[in-house]
């Protein structure tokens, strides 16, 4: 098998139906479709002739094989309560955009009373953070049997299933408990956590019968892990996830095993290693670390494993601060490495600006935008911030490349309705864009003032000069 990054679009192209002008996949040509397939921006199933015409059956199979990720894609849950993990083609994010961001699961144990269960489920349901225009959330609930009582586990699962909007992981090593759980979630496709060298025979029978994905845990012994993978595959079970063990006392080992497992899957194409990796930062809760330090440690271990190839994390904390950096970092890590990260163009309101408040302009490069808005907030200024579409480039680059233009500014003025919000007509543009001030004045009809070179000086600039500027602008 050839790594997807080593394939040429031509190799894909020649297997496509090549019906000219068909455009059913949304691309202008089969070549464009082939290129997008290789950069994982579309999927084969969008090519209707390939799927529907029996004469292309063989080509479809060949293409599926060529594009098959070395790390298997596993679905947990069904319908709109579904999470997909794995599906990785490469080890490092700079090689190719990574699919299926690391899913985060939080545990609920069956010793809790109903109110506590609901409270925890609601925490997971409601966690939501807005970051550069996107909503960042948590993904799954791991229901854990600590009572080892199948009936108790059933009733816990029923409550979770009733209140939760997320897919479920059944956590137990006791086959009877797992069985009870599967009876409750018969149609929900939960992930089983976990099969070990001790319980594997019964768990294998259960997952075969209920057709659900299963985790294989090796408790820190990699040979056992791979032995179990081979055994499960032999008996026809291949929806597997791998848990090599997250060992709080030996994280160097954990990081190394995660790295080498992913390497063997992607670089050696060893199919026994080609399954999603599961990290369990929850295990830090048994390590005896002081309570007030647990937030830091659990979050840190999760972060380490996330950037070292974990496809799913099982965690315990119910403090939102534990997850805040993780969901942002996950968004960053799984962003397309080829594109400059950008925010949505348009108007942002900072503080409570009135109709004489300053109107500033910046680019939609995420870093520029974030720094500018954070600098304005920091200096406690009420202002309007217009974000123009520079295709994600920073100020200096976009001015030089002709992406920061008078027309781009005029467009955002028109579409934002800013002219109805302020009584003045004065724009502050970045200092680094001063040489196109005239062009912007011509295109917008607004008076244009060049602001400071660095956004950290916006506060001082506004506080010392805005009154004078806006006075002149309106006279």
């Amino acid at each position: 098998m050839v790594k997807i990054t080593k394939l040429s679009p031509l190799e894909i192209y020649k297997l496509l139906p090549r019906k000219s002008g068909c455009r059913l996949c949304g691309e202008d040509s089969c070549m464009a479709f082939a290129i997008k397939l290789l950069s994982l921006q579309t999927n084969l199933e969008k090519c209707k002739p390939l799927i529907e015409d029996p004469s292309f059956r063989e080509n479809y199979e060949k293409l599926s094989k060529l594009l098959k990720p070395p790390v298997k894609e596993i679905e947990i849950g069904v319908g709109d309560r579904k999470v997909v993990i794995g599906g990785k083609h490469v080890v490092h994010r700079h090689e190719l955009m990574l699919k299926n961001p690391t899913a985060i699961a939080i545990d609920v144990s069956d010793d809790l009373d109903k109110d506590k269960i609901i409270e925890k489920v609601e925490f997971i349901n409601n966690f939501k953070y807005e970051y550069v225009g996107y909503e960042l959330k948590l993904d799954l609930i791991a229901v854990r049997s600590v009572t080892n009582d199948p009936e108790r586990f059933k009733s816990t699962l029923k409550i979770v299933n009733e209140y939760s909007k997320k897919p479920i992981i059944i956590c137990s090593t006791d086959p009877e408990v797992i069985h009870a759980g599967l009876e409750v979630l018969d149609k929900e496709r939960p992930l089983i956590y976990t099969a070990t060298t001790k319980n594997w025979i019964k768990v294998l029978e259960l997952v075969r019968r209920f057709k659900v994905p299963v985790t294989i845990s090796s408790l820190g012994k990699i040979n056992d892990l791979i032995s179990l993978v081979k055994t499960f595959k032999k008996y026809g079970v291949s929806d597997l996830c791998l848990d090599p063990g997250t060992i709080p006392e030996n994280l160097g080992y954990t990081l190394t095993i995660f790295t080498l497992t992913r390497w063997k899957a992607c670089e050696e194409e060893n199919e026994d290693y080609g399954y999603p990796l599961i990290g369990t930062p929850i295990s830090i809760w048994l390590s005896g670390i002081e309570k007030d330090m647990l937030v830091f440690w659990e979050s840190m271990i999760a972060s380490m494993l996330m950037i070292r190839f974990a496809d799913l994390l099982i965690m315990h904390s119910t403090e939102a601060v534990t997850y805040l950096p993780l969901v942002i970092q996950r968004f960053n890590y799984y962003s397309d490495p080829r594109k400059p990260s950008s925010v949505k163009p348009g108007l942002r309101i900072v503080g409570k600006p009135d109709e004489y408040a300053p109107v500033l302009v910046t680019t939609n490069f995420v870093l520029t935008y974030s720094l500018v808005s954070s600098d304005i907030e920091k200096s406690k200024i009420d202002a309007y911030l217009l974000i123009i579409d520079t295709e994600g480039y920073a100020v200096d680059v976009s001015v030089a490349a002709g992406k920061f233009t008078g027309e781009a500014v005029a467009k955002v003025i028109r579409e934002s309705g800013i002219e109805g919000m302020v009584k003045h007509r004065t724009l502050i543009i970045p200092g680094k864009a001063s040489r196109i001030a005239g062009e912007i004045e011509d295109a917008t009809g607004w008076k244009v003032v060049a602001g400071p070179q660095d956004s950290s000086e916006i506060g001082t600039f506004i506080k010392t000069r805005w009154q004078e500027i806006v006075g002149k602008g309106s006279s």
Partner: protein
Amino acid sequence: MKRERKSIDEVLKSVISSLLKDLEDADEVVLENVTLDIEELTFELPSTLLPLIEKKVIEEKPIEITPEKAVFEEPTIEWKGRIVEVKIGAGSRKVTYVVGGEEKPRFYSLNYTPPHKPILSMDVFDTRIPLPKAVKDHFKDLLDNPTEWAAYCVEKLGADMVNIHLVSTDPNFKDTTPREAAKVVEEILQRINTPLCIGGSGHPKKDVEVFKVITEITSGERVIINSVNLDMKLEEIAPLIKKHGHVVVAFVPMDLDKARQLVRKLRQWLDKEDILLDMNTAGIGYGWEYAFTATERARLAALKGDEELQHPLVSAISNSWTAREAWMKMPEYWGLREVRGPLWEILTGISSLIAGADYLMILHPLTLKILKTIINQIFEIKREIEIAEWVSKKL
């Protein structure tokens, strides 16, 4: 009605595929009243259906045996390069360090331990600047006394060394002269016995003037000059760094080509073992991924043999405090900023360590404490140990 004549092949194909479909839900299929009057018959099954049939074959129950034995073999990956070892501190320094020397990327082998652990240094500023509340609350009056601030970091907090940033020299700020600014450097060198890292204000012209004085008054101490970049007149400062026996940080904004270019230029005056490389660091949510990937790529390329990138890496994780989530007051739900701030710096720090950073610049004491613990753990030989089972434990 005209009946189309179908070839026997077509008929069989359709019969077989519907049979196979039935097989999906059934364990066995009995064909009743079927006579096949054919002498020779070949089945050509579409290959997509094969896995389905195979699955049916292994319906036997797994029996009580130990699972098939497999042995994990560590992949053999060829790493041709080696990071140069850079010595920090000399002269009157009682403590000195060496960074670099690695021959494999971090966490790529169970049988390899890097020769040197990364250095954890604390940031100190020569004058009051706006700092996050969590940081101010900790250092309090020390913020007005950079020398004692530095001593506190080394003696009380256990930092390996400190970075004194001469921010007062900024022409747009206090514009102190290089001579004036140098006084605190001399004081700190007398007060502590670890090596010192000395930074300017980030102004490309003024920094050259400041470094001219600093390199001279610290002659022979092998300090780290932090930092030089492609916007500077390198010919004015690089020869002095060499002459007085110092180490320099080559800074580039997340760009491998620029890194090579800057290193090439610097090597006109400096040796390979005098240069550290800083690919820039950004906090989570504020361009972190660009810096992380640039750092990781630089290290991977160096170990694959890219000679110009074989320098120990510097990462100013204190940059993570520019992320608003690190310093801003937020609704109670998101936790106190005294927790969020260090958390941001810790997570940014651990990612730098994973990517390959050898020298971290830190602002908050808690970050130092936790990263120190984790470094001592993860940079040791990794042995296989059985983990505690958490699945059924009450937590």
